[in-house]
Every structure is written in C-alpha cells, then in structure tokens.
C-alpha cells in the first residue's frame, strides 16, 4: 500500500539519485545552519562579554608596578663627580665635577661629546656645588673667596637632514660669565643653593664661619625697550647656631622658601619671600636621635621636600596652614621600604614621583600622592653612587664613585594611581588636611592630579538615594494598586502610559529638570514641600469623604477606579500648593526660602539633589513599577482566594499573603531600579552643578561618576592615566549595575520557580 502510493507520487523515488542528492543537500543545509547559527550566536555573546574584558584590559595597566631594564654599562674615567644629568631622549648624559669640569657624553657608550671649559677664576678653588630645580638646568659652584659661578645647561634640537634629530648641548651663563659675589667678607662657601629664572636669581650660601648669606638679583624689565633691563640686588644675612653643623641647604623653585638641615636631624624652615628680611618659621626635629638626614630634595613643584634618612626611610614634608594662617611643617607621609642610608633622591620632572638610591645599591621607585612604592630592586654595587632621571621619567643613569656608569630604561606609566589615591583620604600639597578630591587636570605643568573616585561615587549614590526616596514609595504603591485593586479597563490605560514613561529619553527629562523644574523649585520651595506633606493627607481625606457620599453617587463609579477619582485631587493639591507658595514663603521664611536656608547654614544651589531626586525618581518609577506589578500579579490566585474565603479583608490579604509571597520580586524591582539610577547620565549631567563635593545636603549638587565620564572623556588623552581612570570609573559603574541586576535576576528566577511550584 505504501509502496503503491510512493510509486504514484509525483516526487522521485526515495532511492533515486535525485532524491539522494536532494536529501544530502538538505542535510548539508541543516548542518550549515546549525554551525552558522552557533557561530553567529556565540560571536554576538562574545562581543557582549568583550565589553567587560576590554574595560578591564584598559584599566589593568594602572596597577602595574614599575619595571626597570638595564640598557648600557660603561666606565667613565673621572674623579670627584658631583652631579649627573640625563637628557629627554636618554641619549646624552652630563657630569659635573668638583674641579669645575663639565663633560657631556653619549649615554649609551660613554663617548665624550663636548667638554666645555667653565670660566672658574684661576685664583679660586671650588668649595661647594648646587643645582637649581631640574627643569631649569641651572647650576652653581661656590668658591673659596665667597663668590659664585652660575651657569645653565641646555640642549638645542635641530634637524639638519630631514628627519634625523641632532641634539647639541649648550652651556650658558644667565648671570654673566663673571663670578658673582655672594659673601662680602669673602669667606669660603661650604654649602650653596641656587635658583634662577627669567625674573630673578637667588643664591644662598653657608660660609665657613657659619653665617647664612642670601643674595637676590631681580631683573627689572624696561617697558619701552625689550633689550633694556636693570638688575636690582638684595642681600641678607642670618646667623645660625654655632654648635650645629649644617648638612643641607635647599631653595624652592619659586625662591620663597629655604630649608636648612643640620647634623642633629633638625630642619629649619625659612620664609625668604621678602629677601631683605628672611624669617625663621620653624625649626623641627625631623628624625629620631641616632638617625641622620642623608639626602634632601624638593619634589617637583617646589612645595614638598623629601628627606632621605640613614635608616633608609624617606619622609615627605610640606608646610600646612592652620586656622590662624600660620604655616608649620608636617611629615605627610613616609616610605620605609629601603634599609640602607639614602644617598641620592631624584625627583621626576613633571610628576610627583621620585627615585631613591641607598648605599646598598638598592633603587626605590616611589610616588608620593598615591603613597605607592612601585619598585625596589638592586641596581648598583654597594657604596656611594650618583643618579639622574630623564625629564620624561623613562630613563635613569647611575654612576658609582669609581666611574662605573649604567643607563637603564624605566617603564613606569601610571604611578599616580593606587587604592589609597582612588578611595581614601589623601593629603595633597597645599591642603590643610587629608581630603577626598577629584580634580583631574589643570593648566599648570607641575599640577598634582587628584584622582579620588570617592566624591564621584558618593555623588552617584547620593543621586540614587534621593531618586529612590521618590521612586520606591510611588512605584511600589502604584504597582500594588495596579496589580491588585485596579479595574481591568483602567489597567489597559495605565500600563501603556507607564511603558511610555519608561521610554521617555532621559535627555528630555534632564533638560526639563535643569531649565524648567530647577528654577520652578527654587522660586516655590515651600510649595514643593507643601505638596509632599499635603498630598497623602488630602488623599486620605478624600477617601474618607468618599465613604460619606450617598450610595447612589458612589455606585456610579465601580471599585477599582479610585485612582481616577484622585486625579483631580492630585492636580488641585499641586496647583494650590504652588499658588500658596509665595504666601507661605512670606510667613515662614521671610519671603525667600533659599536665602533663609543659606542663612541657617544650609547651602542651596539652584540645580540640587532635590530636583535630581524628583526627576530621576520619575525616570526610575516605571522600571520598578513594571517589575513589582508583574511579581504581584503573578501571585497564584488560589492563595488570595483562600485568604479572602477565610474572612480576611482585601487589605489584610494583600499585606499578609500577597506582599509576603511577592517580596523577592519587589526586592529585585528595587535592585533593578537602583541599577538604573546609578548609571543614569543625562539627568545628573544636566540637573546638577557637577561639582565634586561630598555633602549629603539635599539642597546642593554633586558630581556623579557617569556625568564625570561624559564631561571628561572626550578631552582625556588616549592611554594617559586620566583616560584609564575614567575607564576605571566606567568599570565601577558596570560592575555595580551588573551586580545589582544579577542579584535581582537570580531572585526573580527563584521566585518564578516558587510560583510555578505553588
């Protein structure tokens, strides 16, 4: 029978060549589809997962330590070398000796490039040496007759043959080739410090008879002629305690402060901004007895000093202003990863990091703001050694006393970031106390970037908190009503409205918040609070009045339409509150509530958290509403019917049965709403002042993580620390929302299983 029907079929026989070929082809297509879909599906999923890994990939380099790689080693024949430098491209080094010799050499092999002769007067000998701030390239030799020779080292870059760079070292004399008289009594200078810029040059020297002599040369430009200028000299003298032996002398780059260190471990801090009358501000014992200060350097910017100690610890000090505007030195942070006496400290040129070398030959790489030790590694033979870092902080040259010289490359891209600098209070330079600050960039070159994510995270949480304060009660109560009491016909109106509410672009909400609501709230603040207070009261009163209405009227409107009855009440309360606002303001707040608040000590911004809370609450309501409504609506009917049959009122059934069963669902709704509030960008960007302050005041603004990313990301330089920190902020947001959502999702899945088992 089957055979028969087959043979009469119009199709080819099952075993015919055509049919076999066709079957094979179909099978092939089937397999193709299978693998194609699998491939496509997995690649889409992979692409989604990629987001997380890409963010991680960008963020990760922030937490690498430093790395050092030795590049060249050679011996330089020389004695008594006092100072080393390395140029920007790590190819030319220079050394300065106590004999007044300068030698520029190829940093890769030690070949001499240039050996200029300094005009050291033949009759004098060099007794001291000083270097100005590294970025200026200024040096000075102190002579045995109280005179000083100031000179400057620079590099000229030219491109004689197209693309090949040629660097020529130059020595110049900003104060002329003649030695300057520092000590009028012509005593030998045992210690010297120099700083020089285009406007002025300051020299401070310690004479053999322990007088501190100071001389400042101010250059006064003629307004008419650029070539013409006069130099004004100012001198001062400070008598020091005769019993002390001074070991270090340091002038800051702005020539306002002077630090003197003695062999008993005291730091004396002088204010020399008025060079006629230097003033001792503080003399402080900086180290315990038995320990010496073995190295003293300024951190770039000239605000902090770094004191290297004989026990290997390095202390950072800077002057801190107290309430009476007096400055005192504070030991702000210490690094104690090295154990041998510190011989050389080399601060970086443009970041707040530094390198330190100790007598055991260990090198430490540090960053002050982040309080981070990036590397401790043996670099040279034990003993005394000199060290110089290149301006880009990627090269390092060291020389031991016997002339053994090493060039090494440093890989240290992001020292500014650590757990401490991101999340904890950090004591920044020129600040009174440790603080949380976000300030990522500034026009100044030696700026200390402040990458604290705390105020931003705080802003995000503050926004989310106030938004949830508005959204959670409204959304959950609304959802309870919609799922449990509302008439089906009204549901068909309400649900799409809520869905449209969810779809409203946040840029529109943000725009309304910033340009319409914020001024409105500012002008009618008492009205806003009156709405919040009066609304529930009026609703309950309306409900009470409703019960008193004659039954005939009540029956016109069936159960489940209470919400519709209340709409005019809501509108009336809103309008009346707004109308009454000026009167209330006059009665209670002297006619101007924002001003009244400010007088009370509560800060008030026009774009504040109240506005954000209201508008972001509005944005979050639909999310929470829909999920809660689903959860309550999904509670199996036999539970409620059972409860009602046992005589419970609908409200009792709701609170004792329905809400308890649905509570995990409501919890997950809140979590998802929270996730949305945390990540919301446009509303917080437009409706707040975007100032990163940490204050829970509802009348002030904040800066949220998301808005911060939106504002700063387009300007961040690719692969810079700032760029990566912004990626970290994005990663934090991603993780936070992902965790909230995952918890919510897992809870919901369990709830669904529970419902189906009930």
């Amino acid at each position, binding site marked *: 029978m089957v055979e028969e029907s087959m043979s009469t079929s119009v199709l080819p026989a099952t075993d015919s060549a055509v049919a076999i070929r066709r079957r094979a082809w179909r099978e092939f297509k089937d397999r193709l589809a299978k693998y194609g879909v699998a491939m496509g599906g997995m690649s889409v999923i992979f692409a989604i997962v990629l987001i997380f890994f*890409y963010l991680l990939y960008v963020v990760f380099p922030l937490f690498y330590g430093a790395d050092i790689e030795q590049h060249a080693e050679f011996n330089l024949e020389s004695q008594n070398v006092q100072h080393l430098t390395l140029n920007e491209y790590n190819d030319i080094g220079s050394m300065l000796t106590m004999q007044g010799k300068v030698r520029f050499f190829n940093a890769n092999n030690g070949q001499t490039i240039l050996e200029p002769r300094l005009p050291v007067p033949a009759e004098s000998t060099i007794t001291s040496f000083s270097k100005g701030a590294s970025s200026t390239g200024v040096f000075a030799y102190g002579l045995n007759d109280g005179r000083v020779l100031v000179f400057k080292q620079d590099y000229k870059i030219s491109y004689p043959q197209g693309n090949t760079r040629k660097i020529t070292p130059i020595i110049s004399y900003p104060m002329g080739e003649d030695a300057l008289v520092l000590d009028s009594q012509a005593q030998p200078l045992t210690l010297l410090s120099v700083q020089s810029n285009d406007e002025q040059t300051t020299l401070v020297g310690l004479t053999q008879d322990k007088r501190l002599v100071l001389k400042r040369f101010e250059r006064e430009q003629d307004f008419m002629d650029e070539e013409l200028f006069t130099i004004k000299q100012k001198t001062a003298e400070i008598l020091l305690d005769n019993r002390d032996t001074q070991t270090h002398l340091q002038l800051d780059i702005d020539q306002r402060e002077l630090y003197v260190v003695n062999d008993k471990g005291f730091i004396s801090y002088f204010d020399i901004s008025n060079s006629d009358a230097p003033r001792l501000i503080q003399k402080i014992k900086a180290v315990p007895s038995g320990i010496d200060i073995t190295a003293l350097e300024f951190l770039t910017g000239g605000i902090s000093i770094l004191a290297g100690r004989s026990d290997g610890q390095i202390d950072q000090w800077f002057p801190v202003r107290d309430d009476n505007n007096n400055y005192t030195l504070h030991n702000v942070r210490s690094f104690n990863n090295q154990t041998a006496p510190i011989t050389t400290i080399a601060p970086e040129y443009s970041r707040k990091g530094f390198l330190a070398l100790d007598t055991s030959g260990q090198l430490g790489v540090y960053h002050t703001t982040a309080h981070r030790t990036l590397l401790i590694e043996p670099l040279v033979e034990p003993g005394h050694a000199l060290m110089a870092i290149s301006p880009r902080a990627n090269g390092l040259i060291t020389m031991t006393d016997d002339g053994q010289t090493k060039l090494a490359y440093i890989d240290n891209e992001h020292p500014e970031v650590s757990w401490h600098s991101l999340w904890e209070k950090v004591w920044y330079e020129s600040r009174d106390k440790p603080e949380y600050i976000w300030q990522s960039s500034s026009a100044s070159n030696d700026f200390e970037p402040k990458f604290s994510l705390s105020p931003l995270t705080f802003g995000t949480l503050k926004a989310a908190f106030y938004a949830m304060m508005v959204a959670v009660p409204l959304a959950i109560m609304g959802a309870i009503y919609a799922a449990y009491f509302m008439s089906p016909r009204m549901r068909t109106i309400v649900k799409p409205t809520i869905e449209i509410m969810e779809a409203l672009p946040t840029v529109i909400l943000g725009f309304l918040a910033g340009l319409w609501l914020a001024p409105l709230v500012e002008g009618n603040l008492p009205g806003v609070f009156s709405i919040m207070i009066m609304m529930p009261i009026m609703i309950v009163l309306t409900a009470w009045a409703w019960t008193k209405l004659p039954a005939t009227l009540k029956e016109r409107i069936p159960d489940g339409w209470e919400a519709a009855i209340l709409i005019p009440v809501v509108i009336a309360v809103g309008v009346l509150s707004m109308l009454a606002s000026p009167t209330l303001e006059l009665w209670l707040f002297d006619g101007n509530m924002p001003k009244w608040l400010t007088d009370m000590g509560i800060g008030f911004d026009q774009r504040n958290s109240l506005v954000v809370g209201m508008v972001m609450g*509005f944005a979050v309501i639909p999310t929470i509403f829909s999920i809660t409504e689903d959860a309550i609506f999904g509670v199996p009917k036999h539970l409620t019917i059972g409860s009602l049959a046992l005589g419970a009122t609908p409200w009792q059934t709701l609170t004792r049965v329905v809400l308890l069963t649905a509570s995990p669902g409501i919890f997950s709704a809140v979590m998802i709403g929270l996730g949305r509030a945390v990540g919301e960008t446009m509303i917080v960007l*437009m409706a707040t002042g975007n100032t990163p302050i940490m204050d829970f005041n509802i009348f002030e603004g904040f800066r949220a993580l998301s808005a911060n990313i939106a504002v700063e990301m387009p300007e961040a330089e690719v692969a810079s620390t700032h760029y990566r920190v912004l990626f970290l902020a994005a990663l934090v947001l991603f993780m936070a929302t992902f965790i909230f959502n995952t918890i919510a999702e897992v809870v919901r899945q369990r709830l669904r299983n529970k419902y189906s088992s009930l």
Partner: protein
Amino acid sequence: MTNKSFSSWYKSGSPWVWLNAGAVSISLVMVVGLLLLIAVRGLSHFWPADVMALSYQEPGGEAITLIGEAIDTEEVSALRLKSTGVDLPEGQASAQRHLLKVGNRDYFGLDFRWVNGPWMGEISYPTDIVAIERREWGNFYGYLTQVKQQHEVVADGDNAWQELQTRLIRSNDLVAQAKKIEKKDIGEINHGLEQLRLEQRRLQLAGVPEGAIQYQEIEQERKQWDVRYSDLQQKLFDLNTALNRDQIMVRMSDGREVEIPLAKIVEVIKPNAMSVWDKLGFYGHAVWKFVSGEPREANTEGGIFPAIFGTVMMVMIMAVLVTPFGVIAAVYLKEYATQGPIIRLIRIAVNNLAGVPSIVYGVFGLGFFVYFIGGNIDDLFFSAKLPAPTFGTPGLMWASLTLAILTVPVVIVATEEGLSRIPRAIREGSLALGATKAETLWRTVLPMAAPAMMTGLILAVARAAGEVAPLMMVGVVKLAPALAVDTIAPYLHLDRQFMHLGFHIYDVGFQSPNVEAARPLVYATALLLVLIIIVLNLAAISIRNRLRENFKASES
C-alpha cells in the same frame, strides 16, 4: 461616633488602598503633565504671537515705549521686588512681572526684558508693527518706513510693505543660489582637491620619485580645479553684489531708525494685522521650516533638519546591524544551544546587559571601536591621510555600532520570548512531516516569531533614538559641516560626524550662549523626539498585544 467609625475605617486598610491609588494618580498626572508641558511649549513656539507696544515708566525715569512679545508672567512677592528696587504701595503683597521679548539684540544688547507690572502704562497692538526674522542677531521688531535700492528710497509709507514682499522673494532666491554654490559646487571642488592631495601622498608613500609623470598629471588636474574654483568665486561675488542691492529702513521702539539689508532677512510679517487663518497658515509654514531647515546662530535658530537626518541615519544603520545579530543570537540560545547552567548564565548576563548604563557602552565604543579598530583601519587603508584620522575618530559608523551593542540585548530578549511562545506542537508537526531543523526554523518558527522580532527591533530603535550619553563620545557633534549622505562618491559617508536630536537638546539647552532665546526651540525639538519615541513605542505595544491575541487563538 464619627471618630469611632473613622478608626474602624482606618483599620479596614481602606486608606492604604486609596493611598496606593494616589500613587498611580500621581504617576499619571506627572506623565501626562510632562507631555502636555512639552507639547504646549513646543507647539507655541511657532505661533506668530501678537506684538504689543507699551509705555513703560521706571520711577524717576522718563516714559519709554517698548515693543515686544509677551513671553511669561510671574507673581513676585513684594520682598523680592524690593530687592530689585521696586517699592510696592503699602498693603500689596505681590505684583506681576512680565517677560517681554523685545528682540533687536544688536541694538538693545538683550532679546528679553523683565517689566514690572506697576510701572506699565497703556498697552496697544498697532497693526503696522513688523516682526522681522533675521539671519543674524535674532528677531527684530519695529515699524517699516522705507524700502531702498542702492540706498535710494524706492518706496515709503503704505507702498513699502508691498515693495518689500516682492524684493524679499528675489533676495531669498539669491541667497539660496549662493548657498547652493557654497555647499555643493565648492564642496565638490574641495573634495576633488583633497583627492588629488591624497593621490600625491600615496605616490610619495609608494616611493615614486619626485618629478615623475604622475605628479605632473596631478598638477594638471589641480589647475583645472583651480580654474573652476575661480569661476565660482566670481559667480558668488556677483550674487553677493546683487544681494546687497536692497535695504529697508525700520523704526525701533525708541524712535531710532535703522537700516537692515534685505540679504539679512529671512521673513517679515505683520503679526497684529494677521487674521487667525493667516496665522494658522503661517504656523504650518513655520513648522515646515523648522523640520526642513538648517540651524542658524549656533543652533539657537532656524531648523533642525540635519539633526533629524542624523538621528534617522544612525538608527537605520543600527537597525540593519542589530537585527540579524540579535535574531541569530536568540535562535542560538533558544533552539540550538544545549540548555544547561552555562546557557542559563549567559541568559542572565544578556538580560543584565540591558541594564548596564549606556555611558559604559560609550566608553567602550570610544576605546574599542574608535581608537582601537578605527585606528587600525586608518593604518591599513587610509595611511595617506594620516595623521588626520578617517575612521580613528568618532563618526556615524562607530555611533551606530555602539548603539547596536547597546540594544542587542533588547532584540535578543524579545526574540527569545517570541520563540518560546510558539507552541511545541507546531515545531513537532513540522519535524514529523520530514522537515529538517533548519527548514522548520526558516519556514515555520521564524515567520511566527516575526512580530516578536519586530517588537524587539522597534523597542531597540526607540531606545537608540533617545540615547545621548554614549553618542557624546562616539560621533555626535553640535554642528556637522555636511550630512552623511551627499552626491560625492561613495555617497554614504560612515566616517562623518553627525547631529542628533537628543544631543541637540542638550547642546542648545545647556551649552548655547543665549539659553533664554533658544528655549522654545529646545521644547520644539524635545516634542519632536518625544513624538517619534511615543509612536515607536505604541507601535511596539500594539504589535505585541496583537501577537498575544494570535497565540491565544492558536493555543485554544
């Protein structure tokens, strides 16, 4: 008695029910109120409001005349008024204050002026006030006195109005011609020259020695372009001379008479002389100008066509990208993958990605698409153009891709839901008839799930159209010099930056120098965006509802 019944009423939980109902009412009032607010403010922007003339006397000053549109009125308490220097008579707690748009920014400094009610004198609506929409400096209000040609009076008094209308048509025509030359013809020449420069650079990169025949050919071509360019320059110059022929004299509210060249005028109306029907006609015309025109004056005036176009282009490209990938991923998850803990985990992850903040996608798009992929594309294919980036900079393509990744979870979730609603019986029936799995999918399952996919796609599009935060990083600009589609090959320029409605709102509302003047335009833009999104969402909702009905029918 009453008290007791109140407490028993309270115990019954009834007030709580009402409070819950109140929450719904509040939500409804907020949504509807917000939409109404946008609609009213947005729509009223185009209405040619009457222009009032009023005499205004500040205490101690002389009475002056102000001409302007009434924009806003507010009630201010006496105390606040006092701080601005207004003393109300004893016993009066508050007074009205009106915001007047007085225009003439180039003469008065500000477009807007607050006038205090107590100082206002007589208000009239003279029919001969003209409102002039200018290409620069905003609106102008005053009385037309003369029409001039080459600074010689050709018409004055009542004739001036008629004369102005005919001459305005001519000048607007000339402006359009000049614009066409500037945009299209000169744009082509610039493109041609740029191509030649790139060709030359390519030759250099390929190592062709200097002075080779190819360079001479390029030089030849460049000369041709230069000749065309100077022709066009001449043409433009002639047009501009013709444009500068006519002027009008207008008297301002303070009696000064000023000259306005016709070249600077878009449109002149006499709002007080217009009937309601005239105004309605003008309203339609203004709306059309708004949606089809180009922005002027740092986006605070003119139309928003480029922003509409940019939004539509981006959303369309995104839809093309997101649909196949979303559907394939959903089909894989639902039909092919072995259902187990891993797939469950993936499903949760996909669900959650819909909740990840959009700014995170923007950061990802900027880092991965723009800098990483875009940078590599430039190195490989557009090295002649470097260091000016082609794809290594924010642009239309990256914006679409970023939003595609952002919305793909929406499509996946919706499609999966659609697939899971299809009864097993249908699938099994198809398989029992001998169809392979692929055939079952292609012929029966997917067509049935099509509405679900459609819903997902519409929701994705609605979300993408309203999203701004990520776009700020991957391609949106406040003013795009050219549309992404034009007459120069390859016609669709995916590397170009574009304008977007949502970003337009942010930019004009918060970054523009004259926020007050731009505000009505922002409301109008917001209204347009809201309308687009509501229409899309309603479509999605209705498709979904119909879908549910269909399945109810097929299940029963």
